[in-house]
């Protein structure tokens, strides 16, 4: 597959798209872990939800 004289533009586009999507995915995953960790922390400090369920329960 030859991309012609403008290969760099095509490659840059695809790389950038991949990079940004990756950043989004990583950010969301890290955020999820972070929130879970904080919930666990709160739970271990003895706070309970109004419903009586565990903080980290769904």
């Amino acid at each position, binding site marked *: *597959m*030859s*991309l*012609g*004289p*403008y*290969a760099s*533009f*095509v490659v*840059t*586009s*695809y790389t*950038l*798209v991949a990079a*940004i*999507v990756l*950043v*989004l*995915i990583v*950010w*969301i*995953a890290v*955020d*999820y872990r972070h*929130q*879970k960790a*904080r*919930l666990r922390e*709160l739970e271990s*400090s003895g*706070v309970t*939800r109004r419903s009586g369920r565990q*903080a980290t329960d*769904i």
Partner: protein
Amino acid sequence: MTLIDLANPTKFLALTARVLPWLTGATAILLLVGFYQAAMAPDDYQQGATVKIMFVHVPNAWLSMFVWGVMSIAALGTLVWRHPLADVAAKAAAPIGAAFTFLALVTGSLWGRPMWGTYWEWDARLTSVLILFLMYLGLMALWRAVEDPSRAARAAAVLTLVGAINLPIIKFSVDWWNTLHQPASVMRMGGPSLDRAFLIPLLVMAIGFSLLFVTLHLAAMRNEILRRRVRSLQMMQASQAA
């Protein structure tokens, strides 16, 4: 599972936990297939290989508008129905929409350089997309700047609805004004005018990116619900300490 059930964050989390793995798988497969087809697509007789940029540019451009549309509906949910998940949906969508808009801008510029000989031109289409991007950033700033999420939600909702005026402007700017940018060739009256060799990979990519959005959005909504739970637990902790 009815809509009423979904209004309950806990039920929503349960649903998310069930569908997210499937969604992730489907997204990955579609994007891979789309990418393969895009790589295999023939060169355009005018644009050469640069036409391949289309397969990422167009889905991102569509999604940039679609996400604002989703946020507008969520905004109505906030203001009219005071739906508890509407705030969450709106907040979670903003960064993702901003990312898509950014990608549409950048891939467009990268396509513009070989096609028009310039990265950037102040024409109506490009400008209105840039305004969209700025408004996404403004919204994100707003969400971050206000500590009380329900307060922020109401302000953001008003702003989102006002900003929705920009959507038709983006869509029809190519028809209303003389621009460099190409007029609609897929979503237009009278069916697509694009060659099948380009159309199919484009549609696969578009569906793939849409699924990507749904997946990311659900995951981000889950994070946001958890974040709010943390916040309310912290408040309870503060008052229990009294």
